[in-house]
């Protein structure tokens, strides 16, 4: 069956294979590191920079880009708060204000909150799992470029005065062809397509990385809680993001080629939009929140110097939150009118999801109670998170109740609620974890003093900005109004909110100043500055391009605390080509050796081709046909090997 020529070639390759250099007792230390460095570092220059597949570089870019979008979204918030500082203000008009809140919400949800969590995960997960790369690193690079192009589309349109103005959830019929002529709504919908493609690609990368590349011995039951959180989140992305991609594509086709999904005159239904959007939109909240709970578990464990209390309960809470999150979307639609049983079901489902979240909070409190907490900056952010998130959670339980929701729907009470859960639930842990992983990312520590000042400014400024919004809402102030009349009692809460918003903005600026200052002047960080237990701290800060000289082996849930001066490792991976170890899904037993793709420009070129397709399809349906050709060529070239010859061991060139 196999020709003689091929058999001879197989034998020759087997002989060559035996001669390949591998790490081990005979090749270790500085000599090994120098060879690995040569193999793993990317080509220099701008093309090398664009072609990189190093998860650390891509993760860093994700984080920095997302923080830039945070700053942009924050600047819009500052303008809105200035406009609302006093009644009957005319700093910005109604139309511009519509654009401001649309851009603010869309930027924060799609260009900051989800990508920043993915960026942190892309950077840290392979280090935490004891491997050298993510799965599918080129897909990872493609995901980043798609995200950047989506952001450029949205902000480029805003700069050209064709930014969207239909709110971050773009309800039909307002966003439909009849009430939103022009291209503003299309820009919003196509930005969604970019960010969904990006998030879905990153989700597949993360699921495969977490399931298949863990260090030997890191069974699912020993996996760090952040990896658990990201696994649940990635699966949630896979099931939820298609909903928004589908409904926004239907919106574009209603607007461009005259389909009738949301057109009531031709038997469509605007509520179809709300169902599909919130089937994504509610899980989205947990897609933002669950990574943050992973951060909180990591920080709490390290700074309380004991393993997290009731690890299995935390894991089960993560999974059950992930499942329950798909059963609540209709609570965003109480005001649309539902059957009685629908009200009861979604009220109870909304209250039920508080249970696993509360369980996690009790586990963190128990860890603190039983440990010896060190109140350094990351831990302060955890405590701030717990306080703010519990308040936001309680107002959430209030509006899960239908009569109250109908009263409070679309008021500033809701604005207060979701900023408490999103800023408290995600931004506080994020700033804590960025402080915590800053030494691993940059090799230097952030200033503790500036960090503490920044934390207290943020914590107090946040209360000042958002607590009065509860009262503004109870007094009947609707959200998304560009101004309000004097004499309704809304002056004081709004003025306080504006002052608080600027304190929050100053705190964020201080965080950035601290980051930039520490990047150049901060104390040089050792391998494990916080005395933490997970594997990212078993390598240099910042890690070399190959992450670990030898692949570590995990023998307990807290590997570095149990290490006793030695780190068990496996040997035998190639050093002259990029290679990682794959392990089995549950038991993490060594399974395969897997080549890692070389750097390539094709992911960038494919992202450009797909980007051109998406942007032109705002204007003509034919773009889908003609734009698909370069996209197909780029993806084929991405897959096609550079050299059509066999190697002793597989190489992805």
């Amino acid at each position, binding site marked *: 069956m196999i020709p003689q020529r091929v058999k001879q070639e197989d034998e020759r390759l087997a002989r060559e294979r035996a001669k390949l250099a591998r790490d081990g007792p005979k090749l270790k230390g500085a000599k090994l590191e120098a060879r690995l460095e040569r193999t793993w570092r990317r080509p220099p220059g701008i093309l090398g920079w664009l072609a990189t597949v190093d998860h650390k570089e891509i993760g860093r870019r994700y984080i920095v880009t997302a923080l830039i979008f945070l700053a942009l979204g924050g600047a819009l918030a500052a303008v809105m708060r200035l406009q609302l500082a006093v009644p009957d203000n005319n700093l910005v008009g109604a139309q511009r204000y519509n654009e401001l809140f649309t851009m603010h919400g869309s930027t924060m949800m799609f260009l900051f909150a989800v990508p920043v969590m993915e960026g942190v995960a892309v950077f840290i997960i392979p280090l935490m799992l004891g491997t050298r790369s993510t799965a599918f690193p080129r897909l990872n690079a493609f995901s980043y470029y798609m995200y950047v192009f989506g952001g450029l589309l949205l902000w480029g349109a805003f700069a050209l005065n064709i930014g969207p103005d239909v709110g971050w959830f773009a309800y039909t019929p307002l966003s439909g062809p009849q009430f939103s002529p022009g291209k503003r709504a299309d820009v919003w919908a196509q930005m969604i397509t970019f960010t969904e493609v990006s998030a879905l690609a990153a989700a597949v990368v993360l699921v495969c990385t977490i399931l298949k590349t863990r260090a030997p011995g890191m069974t699912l039951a020993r996996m760090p809680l952040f990896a658990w959180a990201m696994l649940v989140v990635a699966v949630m992305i896979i099931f939820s993001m298609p909903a928004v991609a589908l409904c926004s594509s239907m919106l574009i086709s209603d607007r461009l080629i005259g389909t009738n999904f949301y057109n009531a005159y031709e038997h469509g239904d605007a509520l179809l939009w709300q169902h599909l959007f919130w089937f994504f939109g509610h899980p989205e909240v947990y897609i933002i929140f669950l990574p943050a709970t992973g951060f909180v578990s990591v920080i709490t464990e390290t700074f309380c110097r004991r393993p997290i209390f009731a690890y299995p309960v935390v894991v089960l809470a993560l999974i059950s939150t992930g499942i329950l999150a798909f059963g609540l979307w209709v609570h965003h639609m109480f005001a649309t009118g539902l059957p009685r049983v629908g009200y009861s079901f979604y009220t109870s489902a909304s209250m039920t999801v508080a249970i696993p979240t509360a369980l996690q909070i009790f586990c963190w409190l128990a860890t603190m109670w039983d440990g010896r907490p060190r109140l350094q900056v990351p831990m302060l952010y955890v405590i701030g998170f717990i306080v703010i998130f519990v308040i936001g959670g309680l107002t959430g339980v209030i509006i899960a109740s239908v009569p109250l929701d109908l009263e409070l729907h679309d008021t500033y009470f809701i604005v207060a609620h979701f900023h408490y859960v999103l800023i408290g639930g995600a931004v506080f842990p994020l700033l804590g974890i960025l402080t915590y992983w800053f030494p691993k990312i940059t090799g230097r520590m952030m200033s503790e003093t500036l960090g503490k000042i920044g934390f207290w400014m943020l914590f107090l400024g946040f209360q000042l900005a958002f607590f009065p919004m509860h009262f503004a809402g109870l007094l009947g102030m609707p959200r998304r109004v560009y101004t309000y009349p004097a004499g309704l009692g809304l002056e004081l809460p709004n003025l306080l909110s504006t002052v608080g918003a600027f304190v929050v903005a100053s705190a964020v600026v201080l965080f950035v100043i601290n980051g930039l200052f520490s990047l150049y002047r901060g104390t040089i960080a050792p391998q494990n500055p916080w005395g933490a237990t997970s594997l990212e701290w078993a390598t240099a800060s910042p890690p070399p391009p190959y992450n670990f000289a030898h692949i570590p082996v995990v023998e307990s849930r807290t590997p570095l605390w149990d290490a006793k001066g030695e*780190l068990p490792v496996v040997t035998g991976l190639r050093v002259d080509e990029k290679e990682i170890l794959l392990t089995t899904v549950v038991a993490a037993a060594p399974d395969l050796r897997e080549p890692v793709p070389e750097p390539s420009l094709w992911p960038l070129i494919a992202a450009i081709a797909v980007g051109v397709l998406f942007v032109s399809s705002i204007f003509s349906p034919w773009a889908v046909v003609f734009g698909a050709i370069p996209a197909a060529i780029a993806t084929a070239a991405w897959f096609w090997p550079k050299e059509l010859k066999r190697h002793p061991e597989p190489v992805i060139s």
Partner: protein
Amino acid sequence: MILEPRFTDDVADLPTHKFGPSSLTWWGIIGFMVIEGAFFALAFAAYFFLMGHEQGWPPEGRQPPNLLWGTLFLVVMLISEVPNSMIKKAAHERDVPTIRALMPVIIGVGALLLVIRGFEFNNLNCRWTDDAYSSIVWTLLFLHTTHIITDWGDTIVLWALMMTDVGWEPRRLVDTDENCLYWRYVWLLWIPVYLMIYWVPRL
């Protein structure tokens, strides 16, 4: 504190390819199948949501799509599993000549299916602009067509690669195996989509 390495196992003798769930790309493909499955499930949900508003389905005055072309499409797809299974088996046995001979058959079947699909669009008895029913029916058929086209393109590229010396490389056989897995998914998907387009309006 820098930890000293303590050497345990050596993994140099581990293989660099395996079929099925050991393979990393297998998980990647399953991931994308789930994503695409979610798209279809949600499109089905939208279909039933719109159907719930109507007195009749298809709405009064419309004819259900003609059965001939869709059913022919189904038959050809089911038959295509025969060469598909043969290619999959050949990949496991490293029988590269069989793979090289049969992949053009699958590519030909793909081309035939695209022609039939053209007739299907022409026999839906509606245009996407007519009403919400027409829009969702066109969407379902369009979504499935994108799968046929992408798998068809993918198979052509893989076949070109299998025709080179690299075709003997075991990891390329895993690619072939997983390409067959994906084709199975595409024809399995067609069964519910076919029922939704052609038979639910006839219930």
